């Protein structure tokens, strides 16, 4: 028997790691991976709550999150490729054309 809190803690740790990665990483691909990590953390709490309340709709939500993540990855990586083609870099600090 594992208390729900443990699962939520794990989920929180994963989410925080994702946020940290999003903030401190400079490679645009790694930033995208950090977003995936956050989504995974959220998914874990969805599944944990689904198990806790015996409500399957929590698991169904995970599917929707996965679909959104897949769409995001497809479009995001396409944008990354387009950016790389014009700017020849993956460093977000150097993609600053719109910066004052």
């Amino acid at each position, binding site marked *: 028997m594992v208390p729900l809190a443990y699962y939520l803690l794990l989920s929180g740790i994963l989410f925080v790691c994702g946020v940290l990665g999003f903030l401190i990483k400079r490679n645009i691909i790694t930033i995208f991976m950090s977003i995936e990590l956050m989504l995974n953390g959220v998914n874990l709490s969805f599944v944990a709550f689904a198990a806790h309340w015996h409500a399957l709709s929590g*698991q169904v939500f995970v599917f929707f999150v996965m679909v959104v993540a897949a769409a995001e990855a497809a479009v995001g990586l396409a944008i990354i490729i387009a950016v790389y083609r014009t700017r020849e870099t993956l460093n977000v600090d150097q993609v600053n054309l719109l910066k004052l």
Partner: protein
Amino acid sequence: MLHLILFLFFGAICVAGAINLLVQSHPINSALSLIVVMASLAAEYLLLGAEFVAAVQVIVYAGAIMVLFVITIMLLNAGAEERTKGSRVAILIGIPGVVIGAVLVAWTLIGRSSTTQSVSIGALWGDPKSIARLLFRDFLLPFEVTSVLILIAIMGAVVLASRPKAVARGARKDA
């Protein structure tokens, strides 16, 4: 007891992978640690009895989305990341802030739900049939909307990643 041991084992792998993602400077190492995180999350889902979600997690996340990331890294030949200097104020305030926040959240969670019951190991109740029933009856409209979303995403990806026609033609003439 077995449940707790397995939970801690896979949870430790998860956290280690997540931290490794942050520490590594080369994107391909980060991608691999993210795959490890996803695979051990699938094991956690199995512990929670959600077998179908676990399988889909491996197939979709680890087997498809992450392959896209790896392909992109290989395609762009992404090198190690250049470290930039963070601001000192952010480190001085940020790290204690994160620690205090984490302790607060953990204290609240563990203090509140000590009576929480969890599923016993081997109790699989997220079987494909009941999930399908839910997905195709109660959640039919969201399901259809997400299918439109993914269609738009596919088209967007194709448009974004394809070269502009004039450029492609010019490149071919040069070659």
